[in-house]
């Protein structure tokens, strides 16, 4: 499962800006910044999480962020805190706050380990999203990634690609993947 060695200290500044630029054309980032007042205690205003159970969302594709907020709002995805927050959001607020967070710049620095081959096509060897509707994994708490993979594996969270991939992983492989991406260092630069 884990094959490819990646060079030490591979530094990639990837398109938090670039991806957001395409997705956020019609959104109001200033309005999104106000909505982010609801998010900042856990996710930070710049999208660098302040508590381990929250993912870093600064520079994540707006399409992914909006899709998750919609899923929490509709009940398709459930979380003790996010279900409460998303329930109060309008479509415009979701789009705007997704644009706010997507618009920050994020840079990843890989320092160790072998990138898991099952993941790199979409999530990159450096844990940065390679496509719309795909989250960055770099620097997330390992238990967060572990929890999400197990949720896909056990059917608590569903996705046309992830449910299948996670379903073929055992708990040890899941933790190895989680540890790999968690070890990548990220730096988020707030873009106002």
């Amino acid at each position, binding site marked *: 499962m884990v094959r490819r060695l990646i060079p030490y200290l591979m530094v990639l500044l990837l398109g938090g800006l670039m991806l957001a630029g395409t997705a956020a054309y019609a959104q109001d980032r200033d309005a999104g910044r106000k909505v982010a007042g*609801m998010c900042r*205690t*856990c996710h930070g205003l710049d999208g660098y999480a*302040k*508590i*381990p*159970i929250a993912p870093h969302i600064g520079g994540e594709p707006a399409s992914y962020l909006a899709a998750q907020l919609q899923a929490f709002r509709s009940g398709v995805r*459930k*979380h*003790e*805190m996010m*279900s*409460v*927050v998303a*329930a109060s959001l309008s479509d415009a607020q979701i789009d705007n706050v997704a644009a706010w967070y997507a618009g920050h710049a994020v840079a990843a620095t890989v320092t160790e380990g072998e990138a898991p081959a099952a993941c790199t096509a979409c999530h990159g060897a450096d844990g940065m999203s390679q496509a719309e509707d795909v989250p960055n994994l770099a620097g997330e*708490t*390992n*238990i*967060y990634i*572990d*929890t999400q993979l*197990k949720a896909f594996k*056990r059917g608590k969270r569903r996705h046309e690609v992830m449910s299948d991939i996670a379903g073929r992983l055992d708990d*040890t492989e899941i*933790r190895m993947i989680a540890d790999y991406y968690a070890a990548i260092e990220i730096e988020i630069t707030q873009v106002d």
Partner: protein
Amino acid sequence: MNKLVWSAAAMAVAGSGAFAQGANVPDNLEKLSNFQQTGVTEFTFIEQDGDYADGIRETLKKITLPSGFKIDLYAVVPDARHMAVGPQGVVTFVGTRKDKVWSVTDRNKDRVADEVKDFAPSLQFSIPNGPCFSADGFLYIAEQNRVLLFPAAEFFYESPDVAAFNLVAQGDLIPPEEESFNHTARVCDIGPDGMIYISLGQPFNVAPPDKLALYDKVGIGGIIRMNTDGTGREVYTYGVRNSVGHDFHPETGELWWTDNQVDGMGDDTPPGEINRQVAAGQHFGHPWYGGGSVRTADYEGEEVPVEVVMPIVETVAHAADLGMTFYTGSMFPEQYKNAIFSAQHGSWNRTEPIGARVMVTMIDEEGNASIEPFAEGWLDENGEYLGRPVDVKQLRDGSLLVSDDLAGAIYRIWYEG
């Protein structure tokens, strides 16, 4: 296979002598081979000086306390959550919601830690939030879905390979399919009956009806207890939403605990709770009650099928009451004897944030309790958190340690008069 098993085997031999006194080590040595080994045999040390520590000290100048009390930085500890102070006063272990447990040592006894390093770096932890000690020096660490036991941890922590035993093996604390990341910060404590008590938060905002039977059976949304050899597990407390702090009253031996209450019902409702439990099996109201006597919308109008114990203290809504400890030291003025010191982590979805402070609860002779702020100032005028207290524990000299998982620090509060 590796050094860990070897040292554990050596420990088992030694265990018949010095280290087994007064404690029952589970007979499950073979399970050690199932522990995830990271191959890491070197410690990670956390720098205690420099700009980061200075920044925290700057914040602490803003903290207000009653007259005569002082606060200062005790240690820089990343992600610091619940603490266990070693009974010999050598080392304090600090849990996290990530994958590390930190050992914090004040070698020169100037009441400021000199060394912070990870505990048992060759072991793979998952949400090791809750360390606790038995009086005879056995360290327990309650994780997401396992409880490990470390004999003589205050002695053996100096080595990266420590003897570790399962108290509750991986996957046996709760059914693995019920695992979550939120509401999974376990805490533990050894009761006056010698049993270990472990909190098991339920992962929902309001527990859904189809989960209740399973949760009551396992003790999810409750507090369980068992003997320290792993036998005799039972659910001690029912109807808990997510308790992340408990302690036993120093005179009555009753279990008191905090609980975090339902979100999404408004800024000022329902109240948070401190509860007093006087008998095994008592029910405290979740999911029919969202906090205090406030009914949840999900179960509105339904008849409550159990007898419910109401909280002894209602706290301000959404402040997130976490770790608590009864004060038994002699340093503080007499009025604080047997008072509860507890941490409010601070709200996350209130229009105006509230909390991020240390509270004190006084209990009068008739058993009435009243709560008020003791140390505050971590919430600034812009509604931004400068720190978020998690747990309060007492050092042997009667001063208090306060952990903070936002700043990544432990503070010490002492009384000068």
